């Protein structure tokens, strides 16, 4: 009999936290400054609150579907067609995340430390990691997250603490930055930065209990948003606006400033370590979930024969954009503006439809879905 993988609250929280706060090491602080100006920290808090509110609605609707992931819910709501369509949407979201982040991480890595290596060589490391991770499966990945994510978090907090000497609170003035409408109306769609919460609804079948899913969602969203806000606050107080808009890799530049006496210099090496760890975990989990979704949406018996071909497709797709700027444009302007639709609106819609069907089948004496 095949053993069913179940993991706990901490492992799942570590996965979701890492998926959300990997953006700190890429472009989140700068994107927040672009949106909010000197009020970037208000913008970061605002989108965190929106994400938590969105999750609250979804978790309330999720209650009758304990132990079922989003694909199961889609099947309950709209049958096989629903499962396949939702599968395509999830595959697109995860696929874009993997492809774009692989390219962005590799380009940034090339910019910082592997300056003379060709891009394909840098990407090969990511491909080896995602293939290995997918072969080991979600149980190994979840345990690895439970161990590595605290290390990444401590490293990140050390960098933030080290930058305390360079903080100038005056850089936060004027308090409302780019204005109320830029932050609260135009900025609202950037709740898409939390779209990785979608992964939690895919992991629901591994979490088994509704209570575990609920607490995982809140813990990971709250902790990730605290770190995102800290990163924005430190970045926008260390680098004055608008010169902060010119910085490509914000936290790397913060880390480069840190000099604590004669012995604690070149702290960016810590940044490089946690950044590489975080990005490898991000891409590996995303890739595993692509395989998981592919298997489940198309009712396949195995996913392992698809690991090598899909990894080659992911790597090839990451070469399609002509340069780094093109990837960032697609990522920030399109994906991070609209991914709230599949992450928040789609689950709400599916859950409402599935609940209606559930109620109808209960009225007509049916017993599906199981309301345990």
């Amino acid at each position: 009999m095949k053993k069913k993988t179940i993991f706990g609250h901490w492992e799942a929280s570590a996965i979701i936290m890492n998926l959300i706060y990997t953006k700190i090491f890429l472009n989140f602080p700068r994107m927040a400054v672009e949106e909010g100006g000197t009020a970037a920290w208000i913008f970061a808090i605002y989108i965190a609150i929106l994400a938590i509110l969105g999750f609250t609605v979804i978790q309330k609707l999720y209650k009758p579907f304990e132990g079922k992931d989003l694909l199961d819910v889609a099947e309950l709501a709209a049958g096989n067609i629903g499962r396949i369509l939702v599968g395509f949407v999830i595959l697109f979201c995860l696929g874009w995340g993997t492809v774009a982040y692989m390219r962005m991480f590799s380009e940034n890595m090339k910019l910082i430390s592997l300056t003379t290596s060709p891009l394909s060589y840098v990407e090969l490391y990511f491909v080896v990691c995602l293939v290995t991770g997918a072969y080991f499966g979600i149980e190994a990945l979840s345990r690895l997250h439970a161990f590595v994510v605290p290390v990444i978090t401590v490293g990140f907090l050390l960098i933030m603490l080290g930058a305390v000497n360079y903080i100038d609170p005056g850089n936060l003035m004027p308090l409302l930055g780019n204005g109320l409408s830029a932050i609260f109306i135009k900025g609202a769609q950037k709740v898409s930065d939390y779209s990785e919460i979608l992964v939690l609804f895919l992991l629901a079948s591994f979490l088994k209990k509704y209570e575990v899913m609920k607490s995982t969602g809140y813990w990971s969203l709250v902790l990730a948003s605290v770190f995102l806000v800290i990163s924005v606050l430190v970045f926008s107080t260390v680098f004055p606006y608008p010169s902060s808009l010119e910085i490509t890799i914000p936290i790397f530049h913060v880390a480069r400033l840190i000099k604590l006496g004669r012995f604690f210099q070149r702290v960016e090496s810590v940044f490089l370590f946690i950044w590489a760890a975080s990005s490898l975990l991000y891409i590996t989990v995303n890739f595993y979930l692509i395989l998981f979704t592919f298997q489940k949406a198309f009712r396949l018996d195995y996913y392992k024969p698809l690991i090598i071909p899909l990894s080659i497709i992911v790597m090839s797709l990451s070469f399609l954009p002509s340069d780094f700027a093109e990837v960032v444009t697609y990522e920030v302007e399109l994906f991070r503006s609209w991914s709230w639709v599949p992450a928040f609106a789609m689950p709400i819609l599916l859950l409402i439809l599935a609940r209606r069907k559930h109620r109808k089948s209960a009225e007509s004496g049916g017993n599906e879905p199981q309301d345990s």
Partner: protein
Amino acid sequence: MMSIGYIALIGLLLCIATYTASFGVWTWKRKNRFGAFMIFLVAVTVVALPVYILLFREA
């Protein structure tokens, strides 16, 4: 002009595509037609996409 490295790489991709397609055939025989179709699509893409990148984008 195609180098020997390109030819070796295309050969490797064809091997991977054949392996993937054989999984597709196995799935087809188990009456999962749509799943098999998706696997065949992956098998075609695994050759077509890298070849496009190698031959057209690099140029």
